[in-house]
């Protein structure tokens, strides 16, 4: 079968995590309130790579002062973040079933009450300044910890992103790493139709950042690139991850309307079947 998902290749060690995170995501988006499905699925490999291959964090000690900091600036990807935190051991996966419902702590945008969430996000264009502050705090404290900020591509239309892009470069914060989930879509359509971002890599370079582009569902490529940052001395790094909105579900992948969904029981069953097929057709390892 053919799917519109780009570069969906899973590294052997991490592929199982990514598959379970996708399973959690579709389950949460089938809850009574629904969730931000498409932009969560596009993030799965990025977050899997970070939490299982890059970040120096310990779920048993979430306040470790030497930990790396991850901020999900595209806060509407909270479904993916919570699923990843559960998979990583910060949360009991059983808690995910309560997503968005009365009595749960799992709001649709990240909240600090959830172990592993560093700072709340959701209003777009805030994360890069927060990450700059976190990286600066580490520098002033003499700690080696790094700050990773995961942004959406539509988010880059917020002017505050570029205020912070300039600001981080001015401070020569090479311990700051941004990741752009470049799925190419925002609620009303293609980013390039709504408010074009290209030439995106060139724009970041012109703001003083070191830039790399990777297939955003290729775990090996993500881990390898992120682990090797900083790529240029005294420059913050931005990784543009070429992703597919709704990745893993052929019937919504690559569509803008996958942005938010409350899956019916029937759609959930279909989604689970699709994910099973997907996992089987993308066995771990390699970049095939």
């Amino acid at each position, binding site marked *: 079968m053919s799917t519109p998902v780009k570069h969906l290749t899973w590294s052997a060690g991490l592929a199982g995590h990514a598959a379970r995170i996708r399973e959690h995501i579709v389950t949460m988006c089938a809850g009574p309130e629904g969730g931000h499905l498409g932009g969560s699925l596009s993030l799965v490999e990025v977050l899997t790579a970070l939490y299982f291959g890059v970040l120096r964090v310990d779920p048993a000690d979430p306040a470790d*002062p030497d930990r790396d900091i991850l901020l999900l600036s595209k806060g509407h990807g909270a479904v993916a973040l919570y699923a990843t935190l559960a998979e990583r051991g910060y949360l009991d996966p059983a808690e995910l079933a309560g997503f968005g419902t009365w009595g749960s702590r799992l709001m649709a945008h990240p909240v600090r009450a959830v172990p592993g969430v560093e*700072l709340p996000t959701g209003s777009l264009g805030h994360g890069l300044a927060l990450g700059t502050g976190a990286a600066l*705090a580490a520098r*002033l404290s003499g700690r080696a910890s790094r700050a990773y900020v995961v942004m959406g591509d539509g988010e880059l239309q917020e002017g505050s992103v570029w205020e912070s892009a*300039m600001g981080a470069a001015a401070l020569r914060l090479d311990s700051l790493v941004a990741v752009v989930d470049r799925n190419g879509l925002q609620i009303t359509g293609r980013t390039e139709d709504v408010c074009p971002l290209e030439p995106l890599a060139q724009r970041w370079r012109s703001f003083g950042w070191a830039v790399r582009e990777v297939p955003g569902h290729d775990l090996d490529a993500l881990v390898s690139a992120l682990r090797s940052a900083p790529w240029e001395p005294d420059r913050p790094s931005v990784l543009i991850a070429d992703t597919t909105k709704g990745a893993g579900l052929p019937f919504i992948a690559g569509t803008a309307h996958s942005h938010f969904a409350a899956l019916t029981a029937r759609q959930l069953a279909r989604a689970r079947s699709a994910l099973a097929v997907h996992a089987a057709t993308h066995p771990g390892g390699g970049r095939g």
Partner: protein
Amino acid sequence: MADDPRQATRLTYRDHLVRLLGRDHRVVCVDTDTGLFNGVDFGAAAARYVNVGIAEHHAMGVAAGLAAGGFVPFVNTFATFAAMRAVEAVKIDIAYNALPVRIAATHSGLSAGHFGPTHHALEDLAVMRCLPNMTVVVPADAAGTEALLGQSIDLPGPLYLRLGRKPTPPLPPGAPPPRLGLVQSLRTGADVLLAACGPHPVHAALGAAELLAADGVDAGVLNVHTVKPLDVAGLRAHAAGRALVIAVEEHWRSGGLGGAVAEALTETDPVRVLRIGVDDTFATVVGDHADLVRHYGITPAAIAGRVRSALSIGPPTTEEESHHGHRLSRM
């Protein structure tokens, strides 16, 4: 003038912060190219002076990130940029997280003078006091700035510090020292209570109390330097039995100190509250800080006139009219 006792509260703040940077390694100065620190030698603390450029939203986020990492950042900007341009970052990144960020907001009220409405901040108290977790402080003079900064250093949450631009005089000798979170009684009076914040309003209220005394009206004066959390108990105690409470502030009459006082008293001790401040308008006149304050009726004579009118005790005893729309003589 070497012996001029007047001082701009922003300069008191600057000198305090420079000393603080030297002795408290948690403190970071996040500047937005204000120029306030030009020529300052930070010495060993130089790494903790960070000028992020003309980028107020970014500055608030950076400060939040620093505070989450264990620092106590002081963000320097103009009041209107803190309360308007950067307010979403103040709300979400700082107040929501209850982080110990200090927002040092200079050029507050009308103190930007002839810079005009783009630089006036007549909304900042309303904006800041509606944010949960925020402490809002308006020092009335240099000594108050120094004292309240010292008392607030270990506040676990954020602080909005409203500062002026031009030199203003000290409070009269003998005033009790200000205590963060409590009203500061500058004059007791049995008939009416003037509750003011900020240098010009507090001095104008004290002057109005003198004028009213000549008319047989015994007016008390409070310096409400902590607008949030408001010292409701202190306010109620001083307002009890008074015929009138008059709030005086350098702020639009919506939502600032007058709003806070009225909200607090109407819940428990209904009393007539006059709100004296800047009317619902952008300045169209040109002048320095004192000119504008006078134009908008934040003067002893104008305040006394309003009080007399409210008490129906006859015409003003000076040549000045009681409302700012009329011509006001120079003090």
